[in-house]
Each structure stands twice: as C-alpha cells, then as structure tokens.
C-alpha cells in the first residue's frame, strides 16, 4: 500500500510541455525552482547541477513501518519532524532535539539512530521503524510487554526511545551483563530514573529468547 501525505499528482504525473521546454532552454539549476521533484530525479547523473533551493520541497521516498511513503520536505526538516508532523507518527518523542536524550530513537535500515539529528532528505530510500511498527497487530512486541511487566517507566516520555534502543541492543548482542546493558543503553536518558527496571525488562526478554 502506498500512502501520500502530499498531493502526489505533481510528482508522479507525466511531464508537462512547458517543463520539457524548460529542460531544453534553462540549466537544471534554474529549472529546479519550477519543477523540483522531477528535475531532481531526471538529473540523477548530473549531480553538480542538481541543487535544491532553500525553500524548495524535496521529494523523499521511504518505508516507514513497512508502508511506503512519498513525501516532500524542506531540506532542513529532520526525520523526527517528518515522522511526527507530516506522517502523524507521534510515538517518537522530542526531548532535547540535539542528540542528548535518545527520546527520538528509531531504526533506520535496522540500526538505531537519533532521528532529531538526521535530516529527512538523507533518508531517501531507507527503511524506518518507529515504536508504532513494533507490535504485531494486537500483540505487543516482547520488549513492550517486558517494560510493562517490570514497570520500566514512570511518566513514559522516554519510553518509546528506550524500547527502540532496547530492541536494537538485543540484536547487537550487548546484553552480557547488567553493566553492559547500562553502558549500551546510556544514549537514552530517563528523567524519572526507571533505569534499574529497564535493565530488568531487557534481561527478561533476553532470557526468554535464549
């Protein structure tokens, strides 16, 4: 299923006469202000001329939680803002907006990152997983269940980031000891101090799996 948050016609429809004329006449650089998406793609091999203007919306195709999206964003839009503001996926939280708290943690191509420091345009063609994509229908992910079982949160603001980090941590195999778990979960700050229960939740899931 493909979802569009912007009107798709402008990007995916056939090129108009005037646009083709423009290609002949002007450089890509000047054309870009008029027909951003198509030109960006058409110029795939002419990168030194392919420049998106300050206020231009740049097309980005990405898969989020298994669903393909085609969106247009300003170059300065972060992945976190794209997810929250444009795609309505507000599970990823904005804590510091500067890489200092981990509340915005998502997986990009299977690897955990801070979405607040990642520009959305750099994620073109990538697969993103957010907290909304962990559950299998009505069934919560084992890590989500373990956080509930062990009271791995109080206010819950950091929780989606903690869970996304914890799921990645298991995959990375950094769960040998409570110390190793704490070290490799250190990119997720919890102002409520639920740390010890978070470690217990992670150990629980690790033991279930082994």
């Amino acid at each position, binding site marked *: 299923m493909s979802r569009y948050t912007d009107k798709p016609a402008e990007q995916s429809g056939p090129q108009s006469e005037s646009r083709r004329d423009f290609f002949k006449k002007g450089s890509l650089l000047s054309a870009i202000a008029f027909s951003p998406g198509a030109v960006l793609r058409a110029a795939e091999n002419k990168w030194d001329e392919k420049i998106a203007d300050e206020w231009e919306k740049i097309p980005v195709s990405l898969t989020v939680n298994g669903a393909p999206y085609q969106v247009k964003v300003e170059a300065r839009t972060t992945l976190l803002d794209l997810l929250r503001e444009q795609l309505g996926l507000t599970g990823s939280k904005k804590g510091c907006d500067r890489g200092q708290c981990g509340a915005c943690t998502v997986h990009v191509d299977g690897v955990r990152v801070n979405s607040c420091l990642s520009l959305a345009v750099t994620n073109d063609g990538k697969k993103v997983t957010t907290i909304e994509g962990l559950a299998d229908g009505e069934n919560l992910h084992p890590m989500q269940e373990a956080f509930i079982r062990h009271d791995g949160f109080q206010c819950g603001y950091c929780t989606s980031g903690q869970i996304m980090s914890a799921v990645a941590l298991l995959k990375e195999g950094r769960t040998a000891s409570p110390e190793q778990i704490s070290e490799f979960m250190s990119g*997720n700050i919890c102002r409520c101090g639920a740390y010890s229960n978070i470690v217990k939740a992670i150990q629980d899931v690790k033991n279930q799996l082994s």
Partner: protein
Amino acid sequence: MKPFQYMRPTDTPAAIRVKGKEAGAYFLAGGTNLVDLMKMGVVAPEKLVDINRLPLRGIEVVGGGLRIGALATNSEVADHPYVLEHYPLLSMAINAGASPQLRNMATTGGNLLQRTRCSYFFDPTMPCNKRVPGSGCGAIDGINRMHAIFGASEKCIAVNPSDMSVALRALDAVVRVSGPAGERSIAMEDFHRLPGEQPELDNTLQKGELITAVELPAPVFTKNVHYLKIRDRTSYAFALVSVAAALDLDGSRGIRGVRLAMGGVAHKPWRLGAAEEFLKGKTVTEDNFRQAAQIAMQGAKGYSYNQFKLRMAPNAILQALKTAAAIV
C-alpha cells in the same frame, strides 16, 4: 534552523568542485555535529553538500595497515573484527564517545572535524573568537571547567572533544584528503592545530578539501592498551580528561615501544612525547609510570575552574598505563 540549498552528489570530484567554489557550502556526513550547530545558530550554511552517497565507506586492510573510508561509521569501525584484534585502542576510544545511536550515525571524517563543545562557542549570544573572530574569548575569564591546560592561547582555551582522534594520534594515523588541487596525506600530528592567533581554524584542511580516508600503519600495539576517559557521569558525556596508552612489551616486561596521548586537555589531541621518551627502554614499574606522568605535565597551565585537571591528568596517565600493563 535557517534554510539552505541541498545537493547530494554521487561522485567525489563533483562534491569537491561545489565545496571549493562556494564559501557557504558545507559537507554533510552523519550530521550529528553539523545539524546540532545549525539548530543552535552557530553555523548557517548556504548549501549542504550531502556526501553520504559517495563511495567512501569501506574498511580495508592495505599493505599491512588499515584504510578506513571517511564515511565508515564510528560503530562500523569500533566493531570491525580487524580493528578489535589489531587496533583495540581505537575501538575502545570510539566506544567511549557519545552513545550507540550517535556512533551509528557519526562518520570517521565527521568525527575528526567535530567542533569544540565550549559553551561559549555554542551560544551565539556570547563572545567567542572561534565563532566570531575578534569578539573575544568568553571562557578565559569565565566558566572554564572543561577547558584546556596545554597549548592554549590568549585568544582561545577550547579543547577538541573527540575521543577517536586521541587514539588516532597515539597510533600515528594519516588523514587522506582530496581537494581542488589534488590528493594529499596529512599526519594526525599536523591535522589539528593549536589556537594561536587564529582559533577559528581547528585544522589544516584547505578550502574545498574532502577527507576520503584515515590510514593506520601496520599494527604494533595489539595487547597492552587502554583508553581511560574521566567524565562527569559514567557514560555519554564528554571527557574532562582522557588518556590513550599503548605499550609494546618484551618477555621481561621491558618497554620496547610506548604511545601516550590525551584528550580534553588541548585544542588538539595531545601527544605526550617526552613521557614516551622517558619510558622507552625502561621496565614496567609503577614508579616509572608515575615519573612519566609528571614529565607529561610540564608546561601545563590551569584556569580558574579547571585547576583540578592539573591533578586529574597525571593520575589518569598513571592509571591508564597501569591498566595497559595489567598491574593492579
């Protein structure tokens, strides 16, 4: 964040051409430093040249040494089996920095070029010669707890915050760059610079130059190494003081070779040459290590809030050497 133009070249010459031509153009790698600085209004690029599609991500063993592509992420380098086995000091230093999420994004080239974390630099309402040359140094008579004790100038007492660079300095890495005038190599020693009269310059890169790789010489220090990082909390904080220590020991605990470098103390990764000279040919004893640490502190100068580093640094050197040599 101010709006900017954006482009995403797929070949290296195109990237260099644009950057070389336009003063307001910046390369974008992992973005973990640049995007932060743009949000804070510390830098306002007119154009970002996204280099993430350039073919610079590989990590290869070449001629006995290792070539790390500029776009290899900090995680990819730290977890690389060859690095873990042959350059364990580099893995330790990288893993002591930032967080797992940030290390997944941060690149080798970007890490080398990350700016100082001096709070005056980060705050556009404050004076800072590094951000606005001539505006003065807020830190020199201000809150300078995190600041330099070696090699500072009256213009700037900021420190280079990179952990990775401290290990690269100790291991005599070479930075490969490509620019409008062609390719060249810069030894780590000459890559970062002291503030002197021009604190706005962190390094010796020329206009338009792109880091393409970092090269490590054939491995020597594979066993007796340690990266000790002292910080305000156990993890996910910048160094107050850090020490990279590497020893090459013979069968009777004689010191055949030694490398020592510090982070958090200067405008560049600080190599402890005199202490290395002192230790070479001696044997592993706590007393020798203690003397080496004292020698390393010659010329150190504290400011109002960072006097504690004058004691913390030699203690850290001693401890790092002891751990590297496995004396308890």
